[in-house]
């Protein structure tokens, strides 16, 4: 395996010498920025709500707030609660700080938007759990969250083994929660789902020539006569293609996360438990852990896509033919995305797995949780595809066709 490093470097260079690679990557990054900032653009429109709040001393506050305005007001003060433990004392402070508006949630909502948004996040969460922010205790809050998680799992028709696994997991979740403002991270998690759909386009454009260029540009004879063994060259190509695919995925994921964090407060909130983003989740993950897990899955998925594209390029030498044969795969991804929400399609498919829904998915593959089984599955399929690349390319290279 002499000179593998040098060959790998030149294979990377060959991939990135192609204008199509740069154009596809740049386009993908732009699409990720647009996708991540859609809320920011559309939220500024005329659609919004007239909020009105009258304080105890009779002062009236009123303003028309667009979705963008509402989000900005949440974010502006969201980080004031960073580091606070949501225990009994915390909820007592909330009771003291909020105005007594009875069950008038509109008044309370208006107060939070127009007067003091500090407690927006806990109030929002309490409402999500169907509780009253004026009276809720920490005990009730955590009990309601556990109930929500349980009823979510019950709705998924789990096996007995799956149910007992998640019951055991639920006991490991640390309570009370320590809060960090994490709206940017929450939105980033939600946006990764659409990144998983557009990513294969970029990968296909970048890697369509990896194993076919020798046939097109007639360098094959020189390369095959030069190499004592063709395996290091194939391995260098495979590694370069995989790294490029992973790199493009990393760029797309990083762009999405960075855009969301910049637009939605700039606070990471990576340390906070995932339950403060998705209360029904049974995972013992932090928000950062969830983002990292999904990013890792995205990279693995992109290597899998890269393996598929490279295999097609090892079989045929026409970029157009490659693009056409890639279309059915993409069509399937779109069908999954738009036609069949989670449930009808296997959980481990990228559209379902790289999504916020997977954070409270209770299905398992054998003893593995959904993220673990997805990662294993993607890695195994990618390795098989990359091995097939070598076999197909070798067949052509040795036959000299």
């Amino acid at each position, binding site marked *: 395996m002499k*000179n593998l490093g*040098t060959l790998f470097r*030149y294979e990377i260079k060959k991939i990135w010498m192609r204008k199509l690679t740069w154009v596809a990557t740049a386009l993908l990054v732009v699409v990720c920025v647009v996708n991540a900032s859609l809320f920011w653009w559309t939220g500024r429109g005329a659609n919004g709500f007239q909020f009105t709040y009258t304080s105890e001393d009779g002062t009236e506050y009123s303003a028309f707030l667009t979705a963008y305005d509402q989000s900005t007001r949440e974010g502006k003060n969201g980080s004031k609660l960073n580091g606070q433990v949501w225990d009994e004392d915390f909820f007592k402070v909330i009771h003291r700080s909020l105005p007594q508006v009875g069950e008038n949630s509109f008044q309370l909502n208006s107060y939070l938007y127009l007067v003091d948004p500090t407690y927006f996040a806990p109030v929002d969460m309490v409402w999500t759990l169907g509780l009253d922010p004026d009276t809720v205790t920490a005990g009730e809050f955590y009990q309601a969250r556990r109930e929500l998680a349980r009823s979510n799992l019950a709705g998924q028709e789990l096996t007995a083994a799956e149910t007992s696994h998640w019951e055991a997991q639920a006991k490991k979740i640390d309570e009370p929660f320590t809060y960090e403002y994490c709206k940017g991270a929450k939105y980033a998690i939600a946006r990764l789902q659409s990144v998983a759909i557009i990513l294969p386009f970029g990968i296909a454009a970048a890697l369509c020539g990896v194993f076919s260029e020798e046939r097109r540009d007639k360098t094959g*004879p*020189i*390369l095959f*006569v*030069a190499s004592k063994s063709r395996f290091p060259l194939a391995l260098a190509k495979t590694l370069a293609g995989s790294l490029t695919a992973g790199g493009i995925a990393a760029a797309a994921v990083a762009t999405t996360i960075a855009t969301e964090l910049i637009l939605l407060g700039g606070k990471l909130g990576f340390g906070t438990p995932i339950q403060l983003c998705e209360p029904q989740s049974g995972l013992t993950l932090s928000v950062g852990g969830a983002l990292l897990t999904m990013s890792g899955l995205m990279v693995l998925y992109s290597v899998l896509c890269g393996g598929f594209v490279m295999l097609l390029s090892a079989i045929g030498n026409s970029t157009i033919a490659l693009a056409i044969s890639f279309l059915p795969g993409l069509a399937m991804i779109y069908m999954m995305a738009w036609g069949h929400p989670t449930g009808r399609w296997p959980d481990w498919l990228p559209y379902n797995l790289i999504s916020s829904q997977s954070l409270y998915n209770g299905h398992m593959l054998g003893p593995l949780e959904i993220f673990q089984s997805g990662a294993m599955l993607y890695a195994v399929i990618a390795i098989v595809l990359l091995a097939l690349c070598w076999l197909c390319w070798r067949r052509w290279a040795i*036959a*000299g066709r």
Partner: protein
Amino acid sequence: MELTVRELSKHYKDKKAVDGVSLRLTEGINGLLGANGAGKTTLMRMLCGILKPTAGSVALDGVDVSNEDYRAVLGYLPQDFGYYPDFTGLDFLLYLAALKGLSRPHAKRKSAELLELVGLADVGKKKIRTYSGGMRQRLGIAQALLNDPRLLIVDEPTAGLDPKERVRFRNLLADLGHDSIVLLSTHIVSDVEHIADHMLMMSEGHIILDEPWDKSRTDLEQLYLEEFGGEGE
């Protein structure tokens, strides 16, 4: 040192591109003349191990063409020399040197030497897309020499070159035949008649002339015309 070819054939569905060729080649320039379509390129591709023969064998000092040790001492410049237009000449040589198993320092030293030898030292760091046809062919011969080959196979190396470049290329090849087997295929008589030590002529997949060549002989063109009716010149 001897290249032995025994009953080598390549048959396609309805055509015998090479049919039962047997040869013994030793050090020196071995000219292979033949009209277009005579089977020269097919023969050379089989001698390089990049095309599987239908029958027959090729060996260099007993080492079979399929053996890695055979490729280790082989240099090849194909008829359609493919290259990466955005690589520099130096990068191209370093890449192929890595494929040939040369260590990085050795590859750097050898590439610089070869660029000097073929007169490309001053443009080694320029992209190949800026090279003329002659410069590309010289880069092609440089890559074939990276591993100090004992067997050098060059297929129609002067195709598309202007007369000045052809002479330059011919002289370069003549120097290489002193201690290695050089097989030079062409359909242009003047490419080989004054530098070849051994002459082969090929027609319709068969070798029709296989004899030591006296460089002072002047009847090669006549022989060629008799066989091919002036297709070459």
